[in-house]
């Protein structure tokens, strides 16, 4: 079959991880390495850092990680003088003050509130006004689909890592050559590139002085423009920040030029840009990088190449203007579908009315409602760390100091509002849902996924016709793999006939496994069931028992089906209708309000 054959096409986006790491080291920039469990992220990063830096600090993230673990812990001082005693706190100097390399292992496990200050420090390389010796940090992370326990990392967080690389396992990517190499000769630290023979400081000084050829600059500006325009065509997020693409990227091009022994930065060095793009642009655009690059070159044809000058006396034997050779080592494969079929460009439906049904009319601001003007959180929990002491219960704190409190005092509990909840999306893909209807359904799905993303909801997804197909990620039905869901929203198929019973059953069984938190089903359809129990009696009863609200979005043209109204009324859900807007995109309107409006 054609599809299978496509998978054997050469992977144009294969890049070499060691080249990327070496450039990062030269340019003193940070790296984000994402990959499935067991693909060697941590060991590659650790080996590389051990071989090339002298003061490595490894941070193993966990749910309770606090930036203080790295910045310095709180120390309490008791000072007594005549008749009074004072308790003061200060910080000791944490590990980060002596580290010149950081391995941030499993970033996806870190709580985001500690990550923000940490990453800010990585970027500024100073803490409390003192400069840090930090040269490079490499973070490893599991892809979203494997990191279900944690919140996804936002684009703003990822932006602190100039280099963004995605690793794939040799086996799953069918890279039998690499797999065979591995079997013959397992990776050992010795194989990891040693830059130690290289005088890094000197290299960095030299590369900073490499001038840019004007042509290369023009091509770069053109290339960025193209990438930006292409990204706009997709609904997935894009972030081309000035920090990375104006301040940092030129340094990386200089490192690239220096590595190949060139005396100035030329257009070919812009290829290093691909190491920065993985999670900053939509996947489709990332895959088109080479195409864009060629196009930008063609758009800004270069001057006739002058013979390269070569760098006199330095690093003899290097290849002058020869292209940068990838180093041997594990291949870095880009996790990408390899069929070049254009995906439909998917707009995001306006789903506000649906959102208020899902969330209720709660205040979504971070500032808590007026309930507590002094802003004092009211509940308590056990103290975990000494630096929580300013919030501890005073009487217990005093008893602790006097040595007669077993354990630690209580501290105020901070509460995070509106976190989570679960949403199952059931999408009709029967034969009638073809053409525009299918496109609209996709738009509503992406609208819903974006809402879920904002609320950090776990989302389950089912496509149904006469039967129902349950999509899951790493064995979980409800998950936070939003990127994957957005991709799925763009798929279009339409075949078979409609059955409500099967998809409802699947979703309800999943809700039943953990009957907790806010639970919603949104069913997207254009027709009534012709197969299975048309009145879905058992499912309605089950939904009521579990407290799952079923909302219906009807995309068909005729009358709003009574069965959908019954189901939603009975379960406390609401009915919506898809209404095409001016541009042909769909918006969701509350059906009950439309009726009221017409009356």
């Amino acid at each position: 079959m054609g599809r299978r054959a496509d998978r054997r096409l050469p992977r144009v986006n294969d890049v070499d991880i060691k080249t990327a790491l070496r450039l990062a080291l030269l340019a003193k920039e940070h790296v984000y390495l994402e990959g499935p469990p067991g693909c060697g992220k941590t060991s590659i990063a650790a080996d590389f850092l051990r071989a090339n830096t002298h003061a490595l600090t490894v941070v193993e993230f966990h749910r309770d990680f606090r930036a203080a673990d790295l910045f310095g812990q709180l120390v309490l001082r008791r000072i007594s003088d005549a008749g009074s005693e004072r308790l003061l706190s200060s910080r000791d100097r944490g590990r980060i003050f002596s580290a010149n390399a950081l391995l941030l292992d499993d970033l996806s496990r870190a709580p985001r509130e500690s990550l923000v200050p940490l990453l800010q420090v990585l970027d500024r390389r100073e803490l409390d006004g003192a400069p840090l010796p930090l040269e490079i940090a490499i973070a490893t992370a599991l892809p979203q689909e494997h990191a279900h326990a944690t919140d996804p990392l936002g684009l703003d967080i990822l932006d602190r890592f100039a280099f963004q690389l995605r690793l794939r396992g040799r086996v799953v990517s069918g890279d039998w050559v690499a797999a065979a190499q591995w079997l013959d000769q397992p990776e050992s630290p010795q194989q990891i590139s040693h830059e130690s023979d290289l005088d890094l400081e000197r290299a960095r000084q030299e590369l900073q002085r490499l001038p840019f050829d004007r042509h290369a600059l023009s091509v770069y500006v053109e290339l960025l423009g193209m990438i930006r325009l292409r990204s706009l065509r997709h609904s997935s997020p894009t972030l081309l920040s000035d920090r990375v693409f104006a301040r940092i990227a030129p340094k990386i091009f200089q490192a690239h030029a220096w590595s190949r022994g060139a005396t100035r930065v030329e257009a070919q060095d812009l290829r290093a840009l691909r190491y920065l793009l993985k999670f900053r642009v939509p996947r489709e655009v990332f895959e088109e990088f080479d195409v864009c690059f060629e196009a930008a070159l063609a758009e800004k044809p270069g001057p006739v190449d002058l013979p390269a000058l070569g760098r006199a006396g330095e690093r003899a034997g290097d290849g002058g203007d020869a292209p940068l050779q990838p180093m041997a080592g594990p291949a870095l494969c880009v996790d990408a579908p390899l069929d070049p079929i254009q995906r439909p460009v998917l707009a995001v439906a306006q789903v506000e009315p649906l959102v208020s049904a899902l969330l209720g009319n709660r205040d979504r601001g971070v500032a808590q409602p007026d309930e507590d003007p002094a802003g004092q959180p009211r509940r308590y929990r056990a103290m975990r760390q000494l630096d929580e002491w300013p919030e501890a219960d005073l009487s217990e704190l005093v008893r602790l100091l006097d040595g007669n409190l077993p354990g630690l005092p209580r501290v105020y509990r901070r509460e995070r509002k509106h976190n989570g909840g679960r949403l199952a999306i059931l999408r009709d893909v029967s034969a009638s849902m073809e053409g525009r209807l299918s496109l609209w359904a996709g738009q509503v799905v992406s609208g819903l996924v974006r809402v879920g993303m904002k609320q950090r909801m776990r989302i389950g997804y089912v496509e149904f016709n006469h039967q129902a197909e349950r999509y899951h990620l790493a064995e979980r039905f409800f998950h936070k793999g939003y990127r994957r869901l957005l991709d799925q929203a763009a798929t279009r198929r339409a075949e078979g006939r409609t059955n409500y019973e099967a998809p409802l059953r699947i979703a309800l069984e999943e809700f039943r496994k953990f009957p907790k938190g806010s639970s919603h089903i949104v069913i997207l359809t254009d027709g009534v069931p012709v197969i299975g129990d048309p009145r879905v009696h058992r499912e309605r009863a089950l939904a009521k028992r579990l407290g799952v609200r079923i909302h219906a979005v009807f995309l068909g043209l005729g009358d709003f089906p009574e069965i959908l109204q019954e189901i939603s009324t009975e379960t406390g859900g609401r009915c919506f209708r898809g209404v095409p807007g001016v541009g042909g995109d769909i918006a969701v309107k509350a059906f009950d309000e439309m009726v009221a409006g017409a009356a």
Partner: protein
Amino acid sequence: MNALLQNLRRELDRFVIGHDEVKEALLTAVVCREHIYLEGPPGTAKTRMAEIVARGSKLKFFFYQLHRDTRLTELLGDVVLERRILEDGQGETIHQRIEKGGILAADVCVLDDISRAPGEALNVLLRILNERSYAESNLPLMTAIATSNPHLDEYYNEPLDPACLDRFTIQLQVSGLIQSGDQEAARAVIERFASGTIEEVAAPTAHGTRADYDALYDELQKTQVGDRIKRALLEFLRVLVEHHGCDETNSLLTDRSFLVKAIKLLRGSAVLAGRGRVTVEDLAVLRWMTTFRVPADVRAEIPALIARIQREYGD
């Protein structure tokens, strides 16, 4: 332009390319002693500019990166627990107090990523900013500069509610030079970095003491606002309310902001321009007051509206 401000502007230009409007707004905020809020995507030099303003003068500054775990006490100073033996030896008193630091002691403070702060810290923080006093004593605070990412799904942040935002008299949206598709600006900034002519590590040179800024503030208060300007301001507000349907449900046109603070901004703009009198030119500052206070579609009309009023009320 006033020499003090000229120096500060020079420091801003030394490190950050473009963003002229943001720079101007920052200077205006400092002169007027009003708080300013900058919102824009990551990596657009918001923090950098805020920091340069804070450090570019010999003022006491406080820089704080807010996060979801921010405790109010970290913003206010050091917590001290004191036990004192009672004089009659009959026991002791124990109390917890704050040794003033942080925003309680600073002239200028930078609140970076403000929308990440948890509700309980943010509420108190904003109250302090607004009242400029804490525990019965007045604060030296001149200006708070807050930055934030826009509220977007991709950043997993929460929007600040409009009432919170109203504490920041001046509000601006900052956009990236590359991301906004302005190729010329993008090229300029890339070229500067590529040629290594931006000193990244160097700290800004500090000019101007508190006394200098106090003198400037006196000057501001003496700046004259003529009747014509007052009527132009009222016309601006009238058009917003009567023609664009701004009301309590969709806008935040408070008397405090538009009848008191607006006048202050107009004067500040005149001081910046080195004039002793407000002219129609200065009306341009009104666009920084409407950024998040009127609906987005009205916001788009503001520049044209200001231009029209400037023409009508110019002498």
